């Protein structure tokens, strides 16, 4: 295993983690989404980075 300089990679992981948490909290609190909620939960949890962003663009129902 190559030793990774964690100081370099940490910000990347932190950003991904923030996106993940914010999307998940918003999904729990939101009243209704475009499409079933559980699908969005799977998308957010399993698709790294792209998942939360897709949710914010397409998933949120604004009304």
């Amino acid at each position, binding site marked *: 295993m*190559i030793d990774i300089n964690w100081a*370099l*990679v940490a*910000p*990347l992981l932190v*950003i*991904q983690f*923030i*996106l993940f948490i*914010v*999307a998940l909290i*918003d999904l729990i609190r939101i009243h209704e989404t475009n499409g079933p909620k559980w699908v969005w939960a799977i998308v957010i949890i399993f698709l790294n*980075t792209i998942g*939360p*962003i897709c949710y*914010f*663009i397409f998933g*949120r129902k*604004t*009304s």
Partner: protein
Amino acid sequence: MKTFIILLQKEFRESWRSFKFLWMPLLFILLGITDPLTNYYMEDILNAVGNMPDGFSLSLPDFVPIDILMASTGQFQSIGLIVFVITIAGMINRERQNGTATLIYVRPISFFALFMSKWVVGSLLGILSVSLGYAGSMYYTAILYGSVDTMSFIQMVMSYCVWIVFATAVALMFSAIFKTAFATTFTIIVIPFGVMIDSLIGQYWHFSPWKLANYSVQLLSDTHNEYYIKTLLLTIILLILAIIIGILFTRKNAGTTKI
């Protein structure tokens, strides 16, 4: 003026509640710092996942800071721009579709204030995202590859911001003219695909707004580009034109709102 400030506050509140001011900058920071990192660790990544045959050797070019910033700009111009433009392209017509616009249009507001409030918020969102994205990219580039001249870096970021502001105005213009799906499609064709087309066959002309991003990165190198100023001026003129058309169509299509 008063309505403008109130509409501005409304737009800010809406953008804040839909987390746009959180995830858009984060996306651009991610795009910005991915390139310096992947290029730096390219050898390790290839060794880990590449399934390289024995004795395979690959000589990677020695990157200079401007190459990395160029790569980051490429990321912003493709993924970042598409996501940004899709978000902006729904700002006016989505309100018309879900009926929020009715509540606004029945009041005696000026459509100038309405359009400008959206444009200002969209532009601020874009400028914030792009600046933070470039800051992230520059931070890693400075650590891993070396630094560039500070003044020309600031100049480059500001000049890229002009391009983002232009993209916002065009997206809003289409948003005022068409319905949601059409607006998104047209905006994607004009802005991100325009960039692609310009990079494919763009050698036949020297100034177009789509070239502005490349020209702004060239500000970092010492070569002087005589077309830069003209491109910048053309972009600003088209930006003003897009805003005027947008305001006219916001007024014209006010009747299409759903009640």
